[in-house]
């Protein structure tokens, strides 16, 4: 059953991810991105990291994609302004990437045992403790990084005084 779920989630994730790349309308791309992240969090659950699955939904699906959707809706682009990609290039590069990735996979997975991990019982606590002891300094730097980001974003967008008012002038 677990294997079946794995395959189902894997295929779902990949299908949604291809939706991101293939759909013309950026709103559909964002929607596919949500579905794809949902599938990923399912995979995380199956690997036993409930905490990371929740963080994936909380931050990626619940915040990052919201930002994408907001921007897409604020700009409200008319669909299909984009020149269509050269399908020959798409086909050839896609085939090449898949071919190489499958070879790499074949080589990679030969050495790896086919086992599911014995899930440690208190894994969230282990991670948290490690995060606040050995990785404390990177963690604090993270906060500094986010502070710099807040300032940077306001520096970037401060000049943006209502570029295109409600309707086109």
């Amino acid at each position, binding site marked *: 059953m677990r294997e079946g779920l794995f395959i189902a989630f894997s295929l779902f994730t990949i299908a949604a991810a291809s939706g991101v790349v293939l759909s013309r309308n950026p*709103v559909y791309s964002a*929607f596919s991105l*949500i579905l794809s992240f949902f599938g990923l969090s399912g995979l995380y659950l199956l690997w036993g990291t*409930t*905490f990371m699955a*929740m*963080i994936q*939904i*909380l931050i990626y*699906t*619940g*915040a990052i994609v*919201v930002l994408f*959707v*907001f921007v897409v*809706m*604020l700009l409200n682009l008319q669909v299909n302004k984009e020149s269509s990609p050269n399908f020959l290039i798409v086909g050839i590069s896609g085939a090449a990437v898949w071919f190489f990735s499958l070879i790499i996979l074949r080589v990679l997975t030969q050495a790896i045992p086919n086992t599911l991990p014995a899930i440690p019982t208190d894994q*969230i606590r282990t991670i948290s403790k490690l995060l606040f002891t050995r990785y404390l300094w990177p963690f604090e730097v993270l906060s500094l990084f986010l502070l710099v980001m807040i300032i940077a974003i306001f520096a970037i967008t401060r000049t943006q005084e209502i570029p295109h008012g409600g309707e086109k002038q």
Partner: protein
Amino acid sequence: MDWMDLIVTAVKTIVIYLGMVQVVPIMLIVERRGAALIQDRPGPNRVGPFGLFQPIADVIKMMMKEVAVPKQVNKALYILGPFLVLFPASLVIAALPFGDFFTLFDKNYILQVANIDVGILYILAIGSLGIYGILFGGWASNNKFSLIGAMRSSSQIISYEIPLGLAACSAVLWYGTFSLREMVTGQEGTILSVLPNWGIFYQPLGFLLFFVAAFAETNRLPFDLPESEAELVAGFHTEYGPMDFGTFFMAEYMNMATMSGLMVSIYFGGWHLPWISDATLLQWLGSRNLVALIQVLTAVTKIAFFMLVFVWVRWTIPRFRFDQLMRLAWKNLIPLGLINLVITALVLYFKGAA
């Protein structure tokens, strides 16, 4: 897990889910009669005794109305919109505990859909997905009111998610666990045999923050800006038909129930009766399943009380303006949430040191 377990779990899940769905018709009549009571008028009293069958009439009316899909809409997302709101609202109830456990065929089953060890994160995470229905529905309607309503509504929801998260975080800090079940278990007993050992007495500020944020998260008055009819017609569901409106409504009531359940579990002792411990109850009643019944009744009563508060507040307090709303979230609630977190941490530290 064998087949018996699976069947019992499935039946339990379906029963809890149907119970949650029943909140909608009950709240329909309670809200209409409650509004009438507060505004000093009779309210709907024609259908059935005391108007009790009014929800049935309402639902039938909604079903029989015409479905008009406007021409300008983006069909796929327009149809998906209401369900994208209802879906997360249905999923969040999984982590709510309604009681300890019941015994069936010499086996114990918890009175909760799933004993998720990251329960509170689960509710916050899945609960935050509801805004996609609003965003996509509002955008797909291709109407100015809908779009502005959707942007406003989602700005409001995301702004109030942070105080909600901070308040929940203080609770996690206090109880030292993510699991709602363990939080409720930790609230058994009394403080100095005077007050029940409930979270509200340890986290009053946290409860206040949570309470305010819960109103904003569920789009209820005083924070129902997304559909402020004086400004935006009907907000993000301007272009939607009766049944889609019903779906949005259903999701709103289910979200209210979840938020009430969350408040009860974190701050009001969940299934515990005040001053009476489960062991005493078991001694009086003698049967595990009877105790479980009492626990479920207690939890449901507490949740029902908070639902009534939702209705009461709706008809008492006027609506906020959008800038007031944002100021309340960013200038007052978030700093207060951080202060609450620091106070809780300091109290725990000095308690540990003493």
